[in-house]
């Protein structure tokens, strides 16, 4: 494969296309809302109308507005239809030739679409994830070609540094610096790992990216391999994501066939192969050292760092490990330059971030916004707020490692620094909206139950601290707690946070600490003898608080 062949491949795909295309979303959300019946309806209408030569019915990955599936898009008019039913399919087909349909047209001027800036999701609704030709047609693998033929590995690292991209898995470590560290390790066996073990409940960004645009992740990994001097990559993903695994397997096969993976890619001296490793149901394997143990066939127990994977990772070799979204940002950064990426977002946080917007919100879905967008814009404008006129109480980011931002702080911009200051974190991109009916102690208890069940059990504070924290929360939420219990809860939270071995334990108390910060009164109201924030008992009872 050389650049002419690459262009020819794109051209051929363009020529193959029929004048009209109708795309239907095949992600889990739309499928369970009836997308398959819609597809059958579309295909039948094309067949019945003998329109096979003019209209192509083709699947695409997630289009984002999951709340209103099944979604259908007509090209080239670029009209989106929401909540399409099988009965409406024929009339949607008829619109290609000026017909009318009663299917609901999506308002593309709505802030849900308008405030988005798709970079990671730029191919959303544009390509069939199972066909490499469509990825190539939209410019795919050209960044890899550019890196391999026009740039030295050091120049690629330099662009990544300039871009200001920070780890999108939640840690927020500067990606370019990580690449540089691995690149500077002495030559020899090195590895690239894509962390696709997306375990935060309420997050589905990585699943969506892998399902909808798997080649983009492979391209990013190959560029990373070239930059740091690695020839072997692994994607570690969850067994719970069968469609993502299927699409990824297919993509690897196709990329090998067209020599975007393999030896001497684009005639350069660079070899790169990618293998998939499938997890087996352990949240802790999202922690990088645990993930590497799991790839090596062991229990997913984390180990103390340093040494960091960049120095000693998989099989003790220098290892670059980044999250799916981070890798998905690589191709556009190489294509447009680091400065371009750095021009988006804020001083502290560059570029865009993908969020999975869920919970008590009207427009559930997947969005990509520039850093610096405020939570209020996301929740109230894009998400249309709580359904049925409800009121937002808090927004939870970062899953079990994150915190709850109360409604009066919704003007906070989405940035690593600002969120951290509030006791929340950017996290991997789960954003769960909670309404007035949500009990915050219950939420803290929910997350602690999660951590208690997902702790690997290696270190004492996390293994047994999470159990004691859960029991305290359970006691309080059942109205059996005392002021002393709340005090213990807070003390133990800090201990588990500071003493635990890995990120899971170190962040497990965050949901407690942030709800204690903003919603302490809810804890106090639940006590046997409720107290105000100063610890004064509200009801004058004869019993002294039990010690």
């Amino acid at each position, binding site marked *: 494969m050389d650049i002419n062949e690459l262009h020819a491949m794109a051209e051929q795909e363009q020529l193959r296309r029929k004048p009209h295309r109708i795309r239907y979303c095949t992600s*889990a*959300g739309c*499928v*369970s*809302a009836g997308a398959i019946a819609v597809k059958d309806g579309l295909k039948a209408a094309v067949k019945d109308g003998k329109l096979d030569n003019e209209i192509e019915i083709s699947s695409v990955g997630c289009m984002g507005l*999951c*709340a209103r*599936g099944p979604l259908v898009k007509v090209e080239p008019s670029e009209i989106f239809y929401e909540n399409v039913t099988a009965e409406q399919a024929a009339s949607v087909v008829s619109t290609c030739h000026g017909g009318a349909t009663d299917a609901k047209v999506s308002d593309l001027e709505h802030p849900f679409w308008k405030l988005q800036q798709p970079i990671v999701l730029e191919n959303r609704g544009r390509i069939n994830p199972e066909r490499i030709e469509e990825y190539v047609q939209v410019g795919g693998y050209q960044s890899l070609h550019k890196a391999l033929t026009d740039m030295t590995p050091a120049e690629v690292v330099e662009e990544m540094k300039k871009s200001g991209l920070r780890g999108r898995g939640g840690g927020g470590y500067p990606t370019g610096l990580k690449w540089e560290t691995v690149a500077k390790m002495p030559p020899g066996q090195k590895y690239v790992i894509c962390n696709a073990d*997306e*375990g*935060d*409940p*309420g*997050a*589905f960004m990585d*699943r969506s990216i892998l399902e909808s645009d798997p080649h983009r992740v492979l391209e990013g990994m190959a560029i990373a391999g070239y930059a740091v001097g690695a020839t072997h990559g692994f994607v570690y993903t969850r*067994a*719970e*994501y*069968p469609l993502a695994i299927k699409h990824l397997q297919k993509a690897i096969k196709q990329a090998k066939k067209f020599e975007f993976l393999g030896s001497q890619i684009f005639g350069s001296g660079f070899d790169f192969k990618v293998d998939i*490793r*499938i*997890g*087996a*149901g*352990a*949240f802790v394997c999202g922690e990088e050292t645990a993930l590497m143990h*799991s*790839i*090596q*066939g*062991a*229990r*997913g127990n984390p180990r103390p760092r340093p040494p960091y994977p960049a120095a000693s990772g998989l099989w003790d070799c220098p290892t670059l490990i980044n999250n799916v979204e981070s890798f998905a940002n690589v191709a556009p950064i190489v294509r447009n330059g680091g400065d371009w990426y750095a021009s988006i977002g804020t001083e502290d946080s560059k570029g865009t971030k993908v969020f*999975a917007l*869920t*919970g*008590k919100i009207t427009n*559930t*879905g997947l969005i990509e916004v520039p850093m610096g967008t405020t939570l209020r814009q996301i929740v109230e404008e894009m998400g249309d707020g709580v359904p049925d006129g409800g009121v937002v109480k808090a927004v*939870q980011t970062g*899953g079990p490692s994150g915190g709850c931002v109360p409604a009066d702080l919704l003007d906070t911009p989405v940035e690593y620094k600002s969120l951290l200051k509030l006791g929340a974190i950017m996290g991997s991109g*789960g954003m*769960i909206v*909670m309404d007035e009916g*949500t009990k915050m102690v219950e*939420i803290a208890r*929910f*997350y602690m139950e*999660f951590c208690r069940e*997902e702790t*690997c059990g290696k270190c004492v504070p996390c293994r047994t601290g999470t159990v004691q924290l859960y029991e305290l929360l359970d006691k309080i939420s059942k109205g059996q707690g005392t002021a002393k219990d709340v005090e213990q809860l807070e003390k133990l939270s800090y201990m588990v946070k500071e003493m635990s071995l890995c990120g899971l334990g170190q962040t497990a108390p965050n949901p407690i600490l942030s709800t204690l910060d903003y919603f302490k009164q809810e804890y106090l109201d639940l006590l046997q003898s409720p107290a105000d924030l100063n610890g004064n008992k509200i009801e004058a009872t004869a019993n002294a608080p039990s010690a």
Partner: protein
Amino acid sequence: MSVQNQPTATVAPEKPQKSASDNKSKKSDNKSKKKESDRRYKALDMTMKRHHYEADALIEVLHKAQDTFGYLEEDVLRHVAKGLKLPLSRVYGVATFYHLFSLKPGGEHTCVVCLGTACHVKGASELLADLEAELGIKVGETTSDGKISLLGARCIGTCGLAPAIVIDEVVSGKQTSEETIKQIKDALAQ
């Protein structure tokens, strides 16, 4: 699960290899069953061979074993340990660490209730409680007739559909207890 408390005499004198062959001889009562078992072991051996019998491939091999046998019975774990040259306790430790590996046979059908945050705030816990009451089992258990297993999932990533369930690998969203119970009944009737 633990057999450590059993009196030594009942289990102790047998050598591991012997107990494995004992089990096989029990199975050979039914010849076609044995043949089926041989075919499955062959499939497992192929997987180990493809991974060059490397110890690092343990999780891949266990995935294959679970797919082939339905669950990880003791003989299978022994076979894997022998093939990959791993200590028995290491294999057991890994097999029990990951929740998708099961050391007990599951039901013919499965109903998974997503317990992720989005589903939780939309009432997944209540849904699960209703299903537990309906089926008379707790989450993680299988009905005594072996027909259906009720499982909880951390998050199946379809938060737009909350609360979501998966019956025999088919995802359904925005569930009420009544709908889910009906779907379970339909699945069982098939």
